[in-house]
């Protein structure tokens, strides 16, 4: 090959309180397809944001060499001017504009502010043909599927004279057929001399299109492997992704002393959920899981595995369209059609996105904690503020929520303390089953330990806990059993004794072709 087109040297990027990238070096050869893989939160997307100027020069350390010159991008426009185009996971298309308008958005064929429609349509259809689309350029984006939309994004990138195309999890939202087409297109573009970086954790995809793969773990580049070399097996890549020391610390699990019924506290059978908009996509596909009293059961999976969707669709059908499956509580079938039903049945769901789904940030700690069980501190519809305050003061002390008083607005707290408020809120609701979705996401190590301790205590009191997490060590450290999911399906169930990061990661990266 013709030598490196891109070199990123010792990139360090810190956010307030978190070091997202501690030392990443990436070298991409001219004309290759370079894969980047790593666990959720390893720093892949942050690295690409540094490269494309989303995080402008000066907010990170290290240097970027592109086409042999040192680049200091101050925004996306600057990187695009050099031919670096990033396609984000969340597509950036305007749904009610046409394909042509989207392709040239911000880059219109115009003279003196008036759009030249003839040129626009002509060039748009040429670009669409290049990415294998035969749709008319005046079709609205909203009227084509997600798979085609992804291709339109690429056409848009081509219109900007792209030299380096970055795709962030391009197939995460696509079905198998569309994924296949997209990967073929990447290979086709490679023939035309366009270098690509593809972020993915689907190992079969990487094997199909990539020439080399760089593994990122905990904000550091670990190694770069030649994908075509015989010694680069999927296991080899997996061990690179997970191979970190178990330096997290977990509390010793306290055993639940009470009786365990034969029937599990919560059982979900054959649960299937369709995507809320795209009815043909099964986001959760025939999943059955169960959890007993005093047990902590983990659900592992990568982005797009369907874990949150499973939890939210069970909890009051707050996600997607239900397409079959039953929920049993203590052996009895129950309805969880509405959130209030689920809460009444003693189920609590602690969201992964506390800012959007968990808390009213402009309201106080006090009122957030009481919200899901206001009935417990009120009589005949009137809130007993003294009782409410006593309860939340209790939680402030027992959960060690760092705030001067419970009248503090939640928005002012740190992530860890906000998480403690969400947990308090749901513990106050008095559930028998808790579904915890990424309960330690984005919080510091100290707060993590405190939250692990709380989870352990809950199980010891006989609660059934479902623990969804992307951090494998945390699942290994806390859970009695771990389910794995991939692409909406259950791909395995591993008891604590047999669970290792490698075993889990292999099942989490299983795709349909592999499982057959």
């Amino acid at each position, binding site marked *: 090959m013709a030598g490196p087109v891109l070199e990123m040297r010792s990139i360090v990027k810190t956010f307030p309180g978190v070091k997202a990238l501690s030392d990443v070096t990436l070298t991409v050869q001219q004309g290759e397809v370079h894969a980047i893989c790593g666990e959720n939160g390893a720093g892949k997307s942050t690295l690409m944001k540094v490269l494309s100027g989303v995080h402008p020069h000066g907010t990170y350390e290290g240097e970027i060499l592109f086409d042999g010159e040192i680049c200091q991008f101050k925004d996306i426009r600057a990187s695009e001017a050099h031919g670096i185009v990033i396609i984000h996971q969340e597509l950036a298309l305007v749904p009610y504009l046409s394909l042509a308008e989207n392709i040239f958005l911000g880059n219109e064929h115009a003279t003196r502010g008036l759009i030249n429609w003839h040129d626009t349509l002509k060039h748009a259809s040429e670009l669409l043909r290049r990415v294998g689309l035969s749709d008319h350029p005046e079709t609205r984006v909203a009227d084509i599927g997600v798979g085609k939309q992804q291709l339109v994004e690429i056409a848009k990138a081509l219109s900007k004279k792209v030299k380096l195309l970055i795709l962030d999890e391009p197939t995460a939202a696509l079905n198998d057929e569309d994924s296949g087409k997209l990967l073929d297109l990447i290979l086709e573009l490679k023939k035309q001399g366009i270098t690509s970086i593809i972020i993915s954790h689907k190992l079969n995809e990487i094997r199909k299109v990539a020439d080399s793969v760089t593994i990122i773990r905990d904000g550091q580049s670990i190694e770069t492997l030649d994908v075509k070399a015989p010694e680069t097996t999927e296991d080899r890549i997996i061990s690179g992704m997970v191979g970190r020391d178990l330096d997290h610390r977990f509390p010793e699990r306290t055993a639940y002393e009470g009786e365990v019924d034969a029937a599990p506290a919560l059982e979900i059978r054959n649960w299937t959920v369709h995507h809320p908009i795209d009815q043909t996509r099964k986001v959760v596909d025939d999943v059955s899981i169960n959890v007993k009293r005093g047990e902590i059961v983990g659900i592992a999976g990568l982005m797009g595995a369907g874990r949150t969707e499973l939890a939210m669709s069970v*909890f009051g059908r707050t996600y997607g369209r239900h397409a079959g499956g039953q929920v049993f509580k203590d052996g009895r079938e129950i309805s969880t059609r509405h959130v209030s039903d689920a809460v009444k049945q003693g189920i609590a769901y602690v969201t992964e996105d506390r800012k*959007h789904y*968990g808390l*009213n940030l402009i*309201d*106080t700690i006090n009122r957030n904690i*009481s919200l899901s069980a206001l009935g417990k501190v009120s009589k005949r519809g*009137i809130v007993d503020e003294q009782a409410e305050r006593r309860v939340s*003061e209790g939680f402030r002390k027992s959960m060690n929520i760092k705030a001067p008083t419970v*009248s503090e607005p939640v928005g002012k707290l740190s992530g860890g303390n906000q998480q403690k408020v969400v947990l308090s809120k749901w513990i106050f609701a008095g559930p028998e089953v808790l579904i915890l979705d990424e309960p330690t996401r984005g919080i510091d190590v100290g707060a993590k330990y405190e939250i692990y301790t709380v989870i352990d205590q809950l199980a010891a009191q006989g609660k059934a806990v479902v623990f969804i997490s992307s951090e494998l060590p945390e699942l290994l450290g806390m859970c009695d059993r771990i389910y794995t999911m991939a692409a909406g399906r259950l791909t395995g169930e591993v008891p604590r004794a047999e669970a290792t990061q490698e075993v889990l990661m292999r099942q989490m990266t299983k795709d349909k072709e592999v499982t057959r």
Partner: protein
Amino acid sequence: MSTDVTAKSPAPAPGKSGGSANGANLLQLMLDGMRRNMRQYGMLLALGLIVALFAVWTDGDLLLPRNVSNLVLQNSYVLILAIGMMMVIIAGHIDLSVGSVTAFVGAFAAVLTVQHDVSWPVAVVLCLLVGAVAGAVQGFFIAYLGIPSFIVTLAGMLIFRGMTEILLEGQTLGPFPDGLQKIGNGFLPETGPNTNYHNITLLLGLALIVFAVVQEVRDRKRQKEFSLDVVPRNLFLLKLVFIVAAILVVTMLLASYKGAPIVLLILGVLVVGYGYVMRNAVFGRHIYAIGGNLPAAKLSGVKDKKVVFLVFLNMGALAALAGLAIAARLNAASPKAGLNYELEAIASAFIGGASMSGGVGTILGAIIGGLVLGVLNNGMNLLSVGSDWQQVIKGLALLAAVGFDVWNKRKSGS
């Protein structure tokens, strides 16, 4: 008006300072306290300033007993609407139909009492029901069918305006029976010895003072119990003196004319009642939760649709009450009644501290906002400012109030 509702809002509670304080830097403390509760005190201060300015400009005419009485009568309807509107806005919605509903209910009342000789108490009940139904129908479309409230109530604005004209056949209808007129124009009855003042009004004012002071003291005690930072003792006393003085002045002014207007009594009951609901009832909490973060409220098991439905139903009933008050005051139902009232109610809510995105605001805030507009109206009338310039000035006042709030929030970085 009750102080019960002033004491707490969902906005940040007392902050860091506090503890022991000496009289020397009382002013500093006051400023601190105000800065922390800018939403509440800022507008109160602005109201005081506007009152003072107009009092000077009108050579004291603004504060003549007769005029104060008038001010209350003139603005009661906006204040009633502002209470309901505040709740709608806190829930994250808007209601453009209230002006038309007001007119429609006035027309309905006229048809009942003037054309069909229905007794006025029955007519009042029927009118309130009609208003509630009007609100409920709109609430149904908004809450259960998910049509944006802006659209539904814009449609409602046209529909009810049109229906008003259909009912009245384009004519003005009146006069109303005496009983109904009293709602808009009447004063409390008088008994007891001749004191040159209105005795019942004095007694009511006294009762209000006792109630307010007891509430404040109890609130402070309760906050201390939970080792919350409370305002320092001398600042607290100052606040009490201020409250007592304010109630006393208004009471004396009203009592030296014809006494408290009946509509003021109705308004007082509404403010205390709704203030209590918004602060202490589960229902009120749920309104704040929905407006503050709808997905989070849903995931907490709040029945968001039902709450929104009820908020609009309530708005309809309050619009009906306002409609009765205005029709009774003008002693006629007119097709053009209540024009632009929705805008005045919305402006009152925003001047009084509501937020476009919902989740914030208090009933007392809406009242303060409404009074700011009311005093501006009244004061400019006294100065014979034309209605053209009045609108310009009211528009600027709204812009200034919200602009100041936005600026203040940005500065404090929250």
